[in-house]
């Protein structure tokens, strides 16, 4: 599965995207954020407050309860500030 990061999430993790193989038990978006947070200091810094993080699966906004099954690209980013 491809993960893409934007804005300060991208900066804190230190990379814009990566391919990951999900371990068993990572079923929902919320599970993914928790698993990523435990992958090291940079991830922990980016995902300190997972509740404010926004997630999109294949270019559509999703809630943290959304299942990851079938997702090709999961994007993780802060609240949007365009306009």
């Amino acid at each position, binding site marked *: 599965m491809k993960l893409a990061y934007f804005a300060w999430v991208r900066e804190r993790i230190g990379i814009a995207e990566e391919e990951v193989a999900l371990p068993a038990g990572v079923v929902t978006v919320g599970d993914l954020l928790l698993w990523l947070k435990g992958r090291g200091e940079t991830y922990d810094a980016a995902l300190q407050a997972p509740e404010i993080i926004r997630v999109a699966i294949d270019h559509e906004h999703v809630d943290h309860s959304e299942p990851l099954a079938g997702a090709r690209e999961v994007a993780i*980013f802060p609240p949007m*500030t*365009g*306009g």
Partner: protein
Amino acid sequence: MAETRNSADLSATMYDGARETGHSTGASASMKDGSLGPGIPLDIRVQAERIDVGAVASRLAGSGAVGALVTFTGYCRDEGGRLKALELEHYPGMAERQIEKIAREAEERWPILGCAAIHRYGLIAPGDEIVLVACSSAHRSAAFEAASFLMDFMKTSAPFWKREHLVDGTTGGWVESKDTDDAAADRWHRL
């Protein structure tokens, strides 16, 4: 961003015919820039280049059916001389898709005749435009309200992020999202 609305404050005058819409038509490349998709012409663009506001607006008007055209342009402020530029990061692909989704929802809620929604990315200097939303309709209320709706959701659903570059040469922080923007978008769900 300085907000120069040429519309009135609409919070008290929502369109009577607004209805719940839980979906929009699917996005596809063929529907972008307005020619082949269902419904009204849409001019959806995500670009680094300057926006020719007058040219976009004039393409939406003058058909004979159009009695009203509302445009909103958002500009980069200098923040009292502190700001050298705003950097706009975006998520290519998702940005276009979300803007089109918002525009299709506006098309379902109001009898608009044409719609443009253009957002820039990259470095934007104070005084330059960041975003343009324009809606045309037979009568003014639909154009005013659809444009306001579009702009509210451009701020909360389109994947763009602003960062400040300061005149002292440093890169400032990422701009924080505002609860007032969420509230502005939420009010459309309460109709």
